[in-house]
């Protein structure tokens, strides 16, 4: 039996050797984490950046906007990502060594209401009142009057609506509830859950991440949930046509035009935390959000600062923006991109 012990030891040493040799010498890998909303895009960008040049290793962990902000603040990652930007309270908690935070809107996207009601020929049209009430469990059946009256051609089933929400702290939830609160105010009704990355929903089932919610909707007949357009598009989930501020029902489209219309003309604040809770345009899709990369102003390591600066500028190039469009994200207006280029230049090494 001594032989077995020797064998195991030899195996262990060999493996260690292989593992060490298989790796190029000390590579620097940049770490980021945060929102799941833009995760497919970021990871695609970073992997292709690596394929261009193996020296560019950028990791991204999609764990939700809230967790990303927390890890960014704790210094566990070099950059964060959030669909909810950062609140003043969160910014105040950042270490002074960061020199402040830069909120860089990398792309934008549309939040859709996907559902699982098989056998319908067209997307369901949901009025503003309908979707406000559905998510507050005031409408609980698919054949409810408020839904049926806008869908005369559809045979809506007599089926309970199951609301699917996020179990984790999410910028998507923030953007979604921001819109809901604005609509509720416009309609003069109550929006009980409030606006935050994590709210208390009445009677829902929950899943982790945009991907988890999409998967759960697929599994659950009669379900409806809010997810980023790309996840719905790729999983083939139907998306509801939502009534916008001008009382037009807009279907989310792969072209992104309705999303671009929504972003048009929105005011650009100093810190680039652009919010569009209830878009003006008649052709605008109603629920749209930017998504930000959170960067320190000052990095201790100059090479890290330079790497990141180069990375973000690279992501604004045409090929990368084309990929964004291909994956279903919304093109940012040129004024925002211009402001963004200037903002990225502010990344520097600590003085």
């Amino acid at each position: 039996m001594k032989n077995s012990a020797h064998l195991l030891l030899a195996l262990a040493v060999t493996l260690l050797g292989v593992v060490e040799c298989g790796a190029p010498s000390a590579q620097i890998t940049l770490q980021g984490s945060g929102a799941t909303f833009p995760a497919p895009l970021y990871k695609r960008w970073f992997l292709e950046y690596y394929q261009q040049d193996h020296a560019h290793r950028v990791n991204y962990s999609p764990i939700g906007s809230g967790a990303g902000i927390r890890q960014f603040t704790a210094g566990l990652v070099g950059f964060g990502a959030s669909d909810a930007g950062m609140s003043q309270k969160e910014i105040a908690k950042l270490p002074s060594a960061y020199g402040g935070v830069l909120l860089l809107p990398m792309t934008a996207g549309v939040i859709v209401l996907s559902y699982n009601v098989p056998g319908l020929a067209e997307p369901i049209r949901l009025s503003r009142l309908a979707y406000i009430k559905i998510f507050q469990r005031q409408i609980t059946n698919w054949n409810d009057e408020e839904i049926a009256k806008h869908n005369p051609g559809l045979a809506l089933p007599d089926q309970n609506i199951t609301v699917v929400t996020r179990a984790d702290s999410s910028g998507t939830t923030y953007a979604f509830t921001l819109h809901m609160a604005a609509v509720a105010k416009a309609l003069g009704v109550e929006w009980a859950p409030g606006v935050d990355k994590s709210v208390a929903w009445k009677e829902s089932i929950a899943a982790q991440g945009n991907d988890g919610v999409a998967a759960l909707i697929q599994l659950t007949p009669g379900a409806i949930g809010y997810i980023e357009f790309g996840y719905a598009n790729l999983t083939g989930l139907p998306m509801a046509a939502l009534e916008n501020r001008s009382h037009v029902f807009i279907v989310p489209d792969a072209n992104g035009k309705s999303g671009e219309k929504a972003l048009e003309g929105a005011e650009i604040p100093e810190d680039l935390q652009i919010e569009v809770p209830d878009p003006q345009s008649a052709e605008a899709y109603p629920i749209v959000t930017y998504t930000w990369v959170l960067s320190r102003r000052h990095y201790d390591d100059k090479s890290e600062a330079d790497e990141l600066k180069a990375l973000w500028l690279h992501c604004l190039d045409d090929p990368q923006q084309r990929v964004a469009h291909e994956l279903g994200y919304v093109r940012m207006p040129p004024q925002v991109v211009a402001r963004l280029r200037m903002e990225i230049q502010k990344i520097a090494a600590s003085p």
Partner: protein
Amino acid sequence: MTLANSSTAFATPTSVGKVDLGQLERSLRRPRTLFSFCMSALCALVALLAAVPLLSVLFMLVWRGAARFGPALFTELPPAAAMTGGGIGNAIIGTVLVVLVAAVISIPVGVLGGVYLAEINPDGAAAGVVRFSAKLLTGLPSILAGVFAYTTVVLVTGRFSPLAGGIALALLMFPIIMLTTEQAILSVGREISEAAVGMGATQTQVVYQILIPTALPGILTGVLLALARGAGETAPLLFTMTFSDYWFSGQLMEPTASLAVLIFNFSKSPFENQKEIAWAASLILVLIVLVLTLGGRVLSWRASQRKGASV
């Protein structure tokens, strides 16, 4: 000699003492016999049903995962959104790495702790407490191991790493090794070690030269079972090692890929390609774990064979 058992049919003599076996009857028409027969049938059915889940899991994995098997699976990096191809090469290496780190920590602690329990001070009160603690730790929720390692390693070192992951896994692994080592050493006969003591060996020499070599199959069984457990855990790695999309860079203090976390991440992906990879990775992980577990069982079976022969 066993008396006639109601359902075993081997060649029986026609009489036992004064009892003529030919006169004994067993009729299913009798309620008691019928009840026994039906219970046996029910029991057999239930027992065989218990074998179904394993077959179901394996079938599911092979059906969904085997299609991706090929050299690319082992030599490429995981694909990103809407990309084709890709593989799990870095995840396999990462799993091996973190289990290795965990093994380096847990094997010495487990084996030597087991030696203490079995040999150094088996009947002491302290040993009782330690044994009890080890048994408690085998029931520790894996998420708490992750939380512990996060608080003590990740926050202290300021980074996610296979070191933190390895410590979390070691926490779950070393009690298994410790308790199995104790049992293995306890089952080594007294005579040899007493002979050694008679020749002037210290307890340490007895342990190193007699007990451990003799108990090695049992110890290795425990090690293999612990390795299998470590390779399969997800929750402890989620917050200690997170994940990496690239090949291991030689840096032990960086997020690193692993099969378990890859499976968890990709299984919920909206991209068909990534889902297929998750299945293939699941199949590979289960194969690794099954090989380790079966290896452990074969070792202990062979050891019991040898012991049977030498007695």
